[in-house]
Structure formats: C-alpha cells, structure tokens
C-alpha cells in the first residue's frame, strides 16, 4: 500500500492498483463441460449473471491508456450468492512475479524518476538481476505483444487453482477467457483503449470463451511466472457475454473487491503464495478506499463520442 502510494501518489477513493477502470455486466452460459473437473454451480449447464470491470495496471486513476500497461478483466459470477466466483485476470501469458516480495520490489524499481520522466534503468536492471524469474517471465511476455484493444485480449487467471468434481477428484487448472471478436482500433488521447471499448459495447455485446487448461504431473502449481506446456488439454466450459458498460459508481463493480479467493464450492486455491498476498492487499486497499471520499472516474461512459 505504501509502495503504491510512493510510486503513484495518493488518490483517495480509488483502488491502489488498477485504479483506472470501467464497470460492465453480462452473463455466462455454461455448456456443462467443466463439470467433469468441478462441481461448482457456475459450471453446471445454465446461465449465471456476471458483473465485472475492465482496468489498466497502475495506481494513477487518470493515467493515459498505454499499450504496455497490463489490461485486466475482473469478474464476479453470481455476485452476492453463496456460489459466487470472483476472478481478476490479466492479458498476459504469465505473471511477472512469483512472490509478494518480487512484486513489491518490481513496483519500487519501476518508480518514475521525476528528472527523466522514466524509471531508473539501473534500479530495474538491479531488480532483474535479483529476480531472474521476472526476467524469464518478461521474455515470455515479450513473445505475446498486446492486441489492439480490450475486446480482443485474452484474459488469464495466471495462478493455478484446484477444481474439485463430484467424486472429490482434485485437478490443477488454469483458466483463460478467449475473445470471440476483433477490437476496434485504439483511439487517441488519454482514453485510447477505453473509448473504443465503450463504442464497441454500445454496438453489440462482447463475448469470450472460458477455456480451462488441465495441468499434468510436474507442471508448476505455485509459480505463475512459469507457463504450462502448450499441448496441455483444454476444455471449453462456456461463453461469457458482456452486455452493458457503465461508469464506475456506487453499487457497481467500483465497490467490489475482486479478491481471487472468493471461490465457490468446487474451486479451491493452490498454495501459490501470491494468492493469499493478493487477498490480503486487496482487502487493505478495499478497506482504505471505502472510507475515502470519491471523485469521478476518468472513464465517463456517457461522455464517449459515438
């Protein structure tokens, strides 16, 4: 929390990271294929309401939409229900850090030097020497350059979870939401990515397919910097449709803590140390911002020109 404040400044009422975002709603239609792996209600054949939020990594709520910032899609299936499932995903193939300390150190190393307007290159190279796992993950990320927009980004859960089926069999799974449409080209200005997203969603709903990747023996379960081999079995579990987009406000996704450990019966966390740390830090951020005065979000859906 202090790290984010020192790097990005203090922006009361906003998330400490992924501060800039927009709220969406829609639904998920499960085809039932996921039942093989998990007894979670959301994976039974049928339709589940979804609320969510698109955002960019970084603690400044008014930041410009730069292609290099990680894009996030956070979702809450069956929000408010006992069978609720929350996930916060990124458009990256792997996560840059394997430990909370690594994340923190990278955050501090990426602090922009006011004199040059850029991060201190010696701090970053010192960090990468100390954290070879991040250097390796960065190389993988480089091979997957970001797509033009939010609508055509693949969003991955990155951390490994265990899916538990009716028979009690536990299977390591990583999930991804794979886009079903191209994106409008990026615009210009500070909302170069959010504006086209708003325009596209006004025209038609956006869809992503939920793909479950099944881990095999020996696959890394505790380290999200390591990709799984490309030939792992995948299961198409259903279709996510996002129908509405709205400015962040009271009672919508703005007020939701997308804690990755809000899981339904049938999905269990792995011992990946990042999961508990994310849960702890998101809770601290949520507690702080819910008590702070709110100011308007940078993405004002109604102000986006047609």
């Amino acid at each position: 929390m202090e790290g984010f404040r020192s790097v990005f400044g203090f922006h009361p009422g906003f998330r400490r990271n992924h501060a800039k975002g927009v709220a969406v709603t829609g639904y998920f239609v499960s085809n039932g294929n996921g039942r093989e792996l998990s007894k979670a209600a959301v994976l039974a054949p049928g339709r589940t309401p979804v609320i969510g939020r698109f955002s960019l990594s970084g603690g400044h709520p008014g930041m410009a939409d730069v292609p290099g910032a990680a894009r996030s899609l956070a979702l809450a299936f069956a929000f408010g229900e006992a069978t609720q499932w929350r996930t916060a995903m990124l458009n990256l193939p792997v996560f840059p850090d394997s430990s909370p300390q690594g994340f923190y150190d990278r955050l501090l190393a990426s602090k922009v030097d006011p004199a040059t307007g850029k991060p201190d290159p010696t701090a970053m190279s010192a960090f990468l020497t100390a954290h070879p796992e991040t250097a390796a993950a960065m190389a993988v990320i480089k091979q997957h350059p970001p797509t033009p927009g939010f609508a055509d980004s693949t969003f991955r859960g990155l951390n490994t979870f265990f899916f538990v089926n009716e028979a009690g069999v536990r299977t390591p799974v990583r999930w991804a939401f794979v886009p079903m449409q191209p994106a409008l080209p990026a615009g210009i200005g500070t909302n170069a990515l959010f504006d086209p997203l708003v325009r596209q969603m006004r025209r038609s709903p956006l869809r992503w397919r939920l793909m479950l990747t099944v881990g095999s023996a020996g696959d890394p379960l505790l380290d999200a910097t390591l990709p799984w081999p490309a030939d792992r079995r995948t299961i198409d579990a259903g279709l996510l449709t996002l129908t509405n987009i709205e400015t962040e406000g009271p009672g919508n996704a703005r007020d939701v803590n997308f804690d990755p450990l809000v899981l339904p019966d049938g999905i269990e966390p792995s011992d990946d140390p990042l999961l508990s740390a994310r849960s702890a830090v998101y809770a601290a951020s949520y507690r702080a911002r819910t008590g702070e005065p709110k100011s308007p979000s940078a993405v004002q859906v109604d102000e986006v020109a047609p």
Partner: protein
Amino acid sequence: MTAPVRYPVRTRILHWLTAVLVFSTLFIGFVMVTSLGSYASLRGVHMTLGVVVLAIVAVRAANRFTHRVPKLPDTVGWVEHKLVVGSELTLYALLLAQPLVGWAMVSASGRPAVVFGSLALPRIAPFDSDLYFVLRQTHTLLAYALVAVIAAHVSAVLLHTLTLRDGMLSRMTVGLRRRPPHWRQTVSAADPPPDSANFALARARCHAPCNT
C-alpha cells in the same frame, strides 16, 4: 436459601471454552491483518472461530438465566458490585456484537462468510461499500474494546484472588476445590463444616485477625 459457592459445571465449562476461543480469535485477528502469506488461511480460521464464539455466547446468555450466581466475597463492596454486574453485561454485549459485526461486514462486501472450510453462511447485510467501511472500523474498535474489558476482568479477579486472597477465582475454576487460604488456617481439618458454612466461618474469623 444460601447462594452456591461456585458456578455450575456447565457454566464453568462454557466460560473457559469462551475464554480460549475468544483469546485465539482476537490473536489470529490481530496477526492476520499484518500478514501476507498466511492471511487467507488465518481469515478462514478467524471466521470459523467467530461463529463458534457467537453460538457459544448465545448458549451462555441463555444459560445465565438457568441458575443462581455464587455469592461474591465480602471484599466486594456495593460500588464494585455494580462494576462487576456492568462489566459482565458489557462482556456479553461485546462477545455477541463482535462476531455479528464481522459477519455483517463480510456480507456488506457482497460475499458470503465461509466457515469450516466450505460452509457459506447467508448474508446478513446488504451489499454497500459505505456500510462495509463503518462495520470494518467498528470491528477493529470492538476488538480493542474486548481486549480492554477482558484485561480489566482478568486483573480484577487476580487482584481479588492473589492480593485480597478471597478465593474469587475459585467460583469459576474447574477441578479440585480450593478454599480461601485463611480458612485452612483457622478451621479444624478434623471437622470440616459444609461448604456454605465454610465461607461464613472463614469470613467471620477473618474479619479482623486475618490481616494481623
């Protein structure tokens, strides 16, 4: 009809069960909010202990009406007697309110409180982030209030038992009966009178000479 010397066994068991559970829940609560790696698992244990405390205190509150309370030692004056009653009521109120506030706070964040690994409790408050913040702050405030009231409770009993030596603690202890120490010096072991008489006798004899 004379008051009993000690609380009934069921009350004593409930008391010490509450003591252990509340101590653990508070301790885990204070540790988990400063922890990263263990936060998630500790939160699960904390919430589970919280609902168990809520259930036990509800039983205790009901049980409290089923029996008479052992008489307080004569060292307790009327002002202190009021304090004893007030602090007991405060403890009951805090022990009932704290788990409920915790449960409501989790509910207000839009998620179910999950206890015993996978049992999702129903939500008892509407999804409202402003309400969440108020409840979250209250939960911390009540935790400190509990620590303060429990500290006062323990200190008062220890003061009586160790300094005034009036056997205050023995009203709630489990196991071998311990009599007020001065009673042992003044009453013949060959002819032990019944308990209620012991106290009267000990008190009568201790009135002046015991301190000299």
